């Protein structure tokens, strides 16, 4: 007995679209669940427990875990709900991983979903923030992210064009992903010509609003050989969340040598130490990162240790993060192409699993063995998972 290693043995995703009026929320969930069960060669009966997540105020459903049983397959089974905001999908993945790692369950289904078309996304995000201090003046995710973009440009000399490169890269990658929402050949000029939403962030810099769901099956090492797909092993997980107020994350960043995103840096340090990563750009074959807007593709690379402080623009412009580069980032098209918020973090995990299993189709990174998946959310919550083809030497908690 004792802690178990866990692998991903099946994934299912719905097509990600701006509006899925053809299905109710429960049916959307079921679409992903059926795909994940088919992919892992199982039926509902085989599942031991379920973890589900979304953000309540996007659909206005209280107790989504009990509301969704017809779609999730939880009738007569253990189910719990986990919710941490933008990180919800990656949190659900980590929760399902711990269900298996505990030794209490062998086959656990993780579900993340959102129908962002059913509500006012900005309004719902604003209500994440403190009703006295932040809410009266807050302008939602776009305005909050704009603040860090301004700061990043001022301190590093990065340009709006550098950021636009990231948006072009991710949406071009999405062309290879039949499930992605925004799939388009674009260029820096086109992104630059889109209107400002909150200076310096333009429409073309932001993720879309998406309806979609994702489901992933985690299995214990004891039975991991029983499935049609070889498992994608969880090598380690870590997360940090240091703040409660909108303005807190900007503290320290103006100090020379201070950090951009301490929560992400601290999670990264713990995870890389556990897994033995010293040079992420060389050691990871692929990364699926929760980049909710283009500037994140510069800034967060630094916090994840892919380059030095202020090195983000040079890194992405070098092509090392393009398909065919040293470590392709977001072969799926990433969040800039599809953002059904509760599904988004789980999709990052599912995509890395497909990559290290060699099942990613037209978006496959040849020979990918080890990958990084991240989740990002309010207030700068940072979830990170390392997933690999090889079975890890031991369970790492």
């Amino acid at each position, binding site marked *: *007995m*004792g*802690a*178990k290693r866990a692998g991903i043995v099946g994934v299912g995703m719905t097509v990600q679209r701006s509006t899925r009026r053809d299905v*109710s929320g429960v049916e959307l969930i079921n679409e992903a669940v059926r795909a994940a069960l088919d992919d892992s060669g199982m039926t509902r009966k085989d599942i031991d427990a379920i973890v589900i997540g979304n*953000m*309540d*105020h996007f659909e*206005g*459903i*209280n*107790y989504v*875990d*009990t*509301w*969704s*049983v*017809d779609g999730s397959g*939880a*009738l*007569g*089974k*253990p*189910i*719990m*709900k*986990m*919710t*941490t*905001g933008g990180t919800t999908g990656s*949190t659900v993945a*980590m*929760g399902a991983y*711990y*269900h298996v*790692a*505990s*030794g*209490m369950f062998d086959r656990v289904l993780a579900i993340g979903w959102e129908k962002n078309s059913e509500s006012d996304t900005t309004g*719902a*995000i604003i*209500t*994440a*923030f*403190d*009703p006295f201090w932040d809410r009266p003046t807050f302008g939602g995710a776009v305005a909050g992210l704009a603040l860090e973009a301004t700061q990043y440009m001022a301190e590093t000399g990065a340009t709006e064009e550098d950021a636009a490169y990231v948006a072009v890269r991710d949406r071009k990658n999405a062309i290879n992903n039949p499930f992605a929402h925004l799939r388009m050949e674009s260029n820096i000029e086109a992104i630059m010509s889109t209107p400002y939403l909150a200076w310096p962030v333009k429409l073309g810099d932001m993720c879309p609003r998406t309806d979609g769901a994702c489901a992933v099956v985690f299995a214990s090492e004891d039975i991991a050989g029983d499935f049609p797909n070889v498992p994608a092993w969880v090598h380690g997980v870590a*997360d*940090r*969340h*240091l*703040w*409660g107020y909108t303005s807190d994350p900007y503290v320290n960043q103006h100090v020379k040598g201070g950090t951009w995103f301490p929560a992400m840096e*601290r999670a990264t340090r*713990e995870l890389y130490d556990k897994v033995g990563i010293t040079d992420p750009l060389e050691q990871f074959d692929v990364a699926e990162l929760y980049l909710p807007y283009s500037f994140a593709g510069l800034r967060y690379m630094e916090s994840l240790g892919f380059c030095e402080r202020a090195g983000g623009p040079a890194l992405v412009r070098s092509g090392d993060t393009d398909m065919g580069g040293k470590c392709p980032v977001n072969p799926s098209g990433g969040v800039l192409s599809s953002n059904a918020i509760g599904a988004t973090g789980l999709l990052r995990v599912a995509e890395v699993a497909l990559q290290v299993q060699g099942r990613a189709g037209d978006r496959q990174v040849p020979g990918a063995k080890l990958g990084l998946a991240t989740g990002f*959310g*309010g*207030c700068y919550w940072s979830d990170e998972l390392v997933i690999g083809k090889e079975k890890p030497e031991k*369970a*790492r*908690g």
Partner: protein
Amino acid sequence: MEPVAIVGVGMTKFERDRVRDTFGDLVFEACTRALDDAGMTIDDIDIVLTGSNDFFDGRTISSMAIMDACGSYDKNVSTVEGDGTFGAAHAVMRVLAGWGTCLYCAHHKGSESVMPLITNAMFDPIYERFLGIDSVTSAALQARAYMDRYGVTEEQCAQVSVKNHGNAFKNPYAQLPLQLTIEDVLASPYVADPIKLLDCCPISDGASAVVIAGAQRAKALDAKPAWVKGIGYNCDAYHLGDRDLSKVDALQAASKTAYAQAGISDPAKEVDLAEVHDTFTYLELMAIEGLGLCRMGEAGEFTAFGNTAQDGRLPVNASGGCISSNPVLVAGLNSIIECALQIRGDAGEHQVDGVKTAVAQGVNGPCGQSQCVWVLGGDE
């Protein structure tokens, strides 16, 4: 299950309208008490889990409001949205997976919102919500179905109210100790037939916290551990029309799992005390039956004969139960804490003699749709 223990517990006093306190104030009070109880500081905690609900708190990502107060700075932290029995179950999983200690807290301020609107949002927006259905009116349907099936009377339900409100006098954390007679309960106005005002829980504000530790860490402490012997949870159908509301399928399934882990074959004989979800009186009767502590349909008589009194053969809700304080989400954690205190012999005035095995129950969703059962014991 590998041995895991509850090594520290803390709760705030539960009150209506704790207007002086923010969510964070409540959580800090509960967490520091749990740490003190365990003889620990925050540095002894490896990871943190929190429990809250965006609807009840009126904010998206409700756990953000308590991040300073729950002590999670620079630690792995996550949030289970649901009753404390579910959140604490996940804390146990993380400890089993290799983390040494986990601080888990849950908070609730029912007085800040309009409860019928929030519980209405549990129901399907397309087919049910427009009826104005909420936790009380759905419970009335279930109460009627259960009472008709087994011939349970309103008097029998009233006994639960009299007993639990009376028990609350001995629990300094309880919100609503009341000296009642069966006649008082029967004379209280109907809220939704067959449920009367004194069959219902109050609206409560407060928070609770526990420290959960693996065997190695638990044994190294001075604190008396309460060992987690088994945990089961299970979910029934969603639409009320898809269920026979008089049945307790999910609770029976959850109990079966928890008892199997704990090696309990005859719960009626082996369980010494139970803390159950009694937000409405009939639910305590259903819970006693669903937990296998008496036969189906017999909990009314079982209660009438005094078996579930504080000095009875199998005390149920010796703490005063949810009917005396009902901080939603925290409620199930309070049941776990009460069981732990009883096993440790630290329950003060409401201590029951010789509790070796205790059972706690918590629920999520309408009419007890999703059920969680914990078995706690004094021996590893």
